[in-house]
């Protein structure tokens, strides 16, 4: 999925999943449960809603805390992840998921002021 890397990926939360089907997105949430196979796990967003993430290969490490997932949304609303990024809780400032959610809402309420697509393709 190399096409995901160069393309602008809007940041979304669970309520916006279904508007982005078949599109690359960036999802930040807190890891909830990891499936025993290690190929799928659930994350909760700043509003407390849950989304499912599916990986190409099973996890090779313990996943916990806040994670940033980049992938494409399937027709069923599952994020098919191409890469993920764990935000370490022992370093730096603690990530405030609620504040992030507020910021997300602002970005989506005022797309005219946040033209990420234009910036990326320019």
């Amino acid at each position: 999925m190399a096409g995901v890397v160069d393309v602008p990926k809007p940041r979304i939360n669970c309520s916006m999943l279904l508007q982005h089907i078949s599109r690359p997105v960036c999802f930040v949430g807190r890891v909830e449960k990891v499936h025993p196979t290690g190929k799928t796990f659930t994350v909760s967003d700043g509003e407390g809603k849950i989304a499912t993430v599916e990986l190409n290969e099973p996890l090779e490490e313990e996943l916990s805390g806040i994670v940033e997932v980049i992938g494409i949304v399937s027709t069923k609303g599952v994020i098919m992840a191409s890469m993920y990024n764990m935000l370490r809780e022992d370093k730096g400032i603690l990530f405030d998921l609620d504040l992030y959610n507020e910021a997300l809402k602002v970005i989506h309420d005022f797309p005219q002021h946040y033209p990420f697509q234009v910036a990326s393709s320019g």
Partner: protein
Amino acid sequence: MTKLSEGAIEALSNGTGGNDAVLQCVNIRKIDGGNGPARFRVMMSDGRHTLSSFMLSTQLNIMAEENRLAPNCICVLKKHVTNMLKDGRRIVIILEIDVIKPAEDVAGKIGEPTPYTEGKVVASTLLISTVIVHFSVAVVGKAPSAVPNTPGGTSKVVPIASLNPYQSKWTIRARVTNKSTIRTWSNSRGDGKLFSMEVVDESGEIRVTGFNQEVDKFYTLIEVGKVYYISKCSLKIANKQYTSVKNDYEMTFSGESTVIPCDDSCDVPMVQCDFVSISDLENRDKDAIIDVIGVCKSVEEVTRITTKSNREVTKRTLSLMDMSGKVVTVTLWGEEAEKFDGSGQPIVAIKGAKLSDFGGRSLSASFNSTLMINPDIPEAYKLRGWYDKEGHAMDGQSLTELKGGSGGGNTNWKALSDVKTEHLGHGDKADYYTCIATIVYLRKENCLYQACPSQDCNKKVVDQQNGMYRCEKCDKEFPNFKYRLILSANIADYGDNQWVTCFQESAEAILGQNAAYLGQLKDSNETAFDEIFQQANFNTFVFRNRVKLETYNDESRIKATVMDVKPVDHKDYSKRLIMNIRKLAAQ
């Protein structure tokens, strides 16, 4: 023999009749009216009962004075009005009476009348006092309203607005709105203590002070919010410096003053406050006495400080916000500070707070002020409603610059372009603001100077060229000096830039090195010195700046000084940005 109207006394007493009653005058008593005319109290009989609660209206005084109306005479009560006393008894005011048989022509008391009593027996003086209140009304012929009872007093209840130093026999019925703490003093003339309070009635308000013995007599008796009959205080011109009370006079308790609790208080107003909007405080003079009401947004811990007179006092500050969106810091002292509970963002009202220009504008609850928490007044409810709906989300702009804390809702956030558009610093006083900005240029030339090595002296020393450095302020020479920083920098944000001067602490924070080390590097390793400035460039900080218009030889320029530099709190910043975006969107 002329027949008396038996039953008339009963009817008069009950208010059920008595017109044109034929009565015999049993007794007449003259009552000194004090400041007014004399009054005559008459005891009348209808043959069955006597009633002593008859008052002759003053226009008929002449009848008594000329003895036309005298004990034993028979008369017809042509016109009268009755007043109802608080305890249910009536007084009959005689407005017109015809003597049909003069006293000389009557042998004696007709019949064996017994005194008609109804309810409690009250001292005669009471009757007089209550009637005197209404004699003016009675003369006009109107039916007067309920007379407030004045137990124990020989004066009428007067409105506060009518009090003056030229009348000493009066009683007021008022509610205590404000009671200060007891204050003691000790000077060359001796010791003393005093307390003061403010009382209000339908007509106005007035300040009352009690000294020494009166403090012992009245302080514990008097409770804020309760209504009392107060009499016989001495009136004098008010000293407006100490109070916000609207009255030309103020009064002092004397040895003869009385304070009696009153039960019937529903028509005495609760509290008279003239609240000033917090945004308007900027326009008031410092040291003004102000009433204010607002939501307690935040409150600090109690701290102890030592005053100039070496007394230890406790104090606590709280921030108060009202619908103007402005916030002001209020300082509480002593017991009030210790007892204050600011949890739950209560509505706080202060009557008689002192406005100071400390940090711009701030308020202090002096010993004269009254602090009310969640008072039962309409302004409080309005504030509560506003705060729950919108106020709680507002940051509020503070009129008070606090040293060091930028937390809470107290900082005055500005963008650099605001400094110019709002003409900050153009007033008499310096303006303080906080902003987030990025350093875009640091002037490394002349950023260091040689200062006096003495502890608290930072004056530039003169190089004597002989290995000694002279400080003019300390008037001493030293073989050494200490390096101090004065850093000129240009900071910028999205809208504008600003030249600022940073002194020692803020400069060291920006450069990340202390002045002594920098001084050393400058002399020894210029490359390393330059590197420090390169690294410091383009960093973003929270700056707290002071701006003031300064004039040098006909040229005026805004000078900005950095008071404090802090790293950016991104969470706080994000929250503020989101709030501002939402606010802008709502407009």
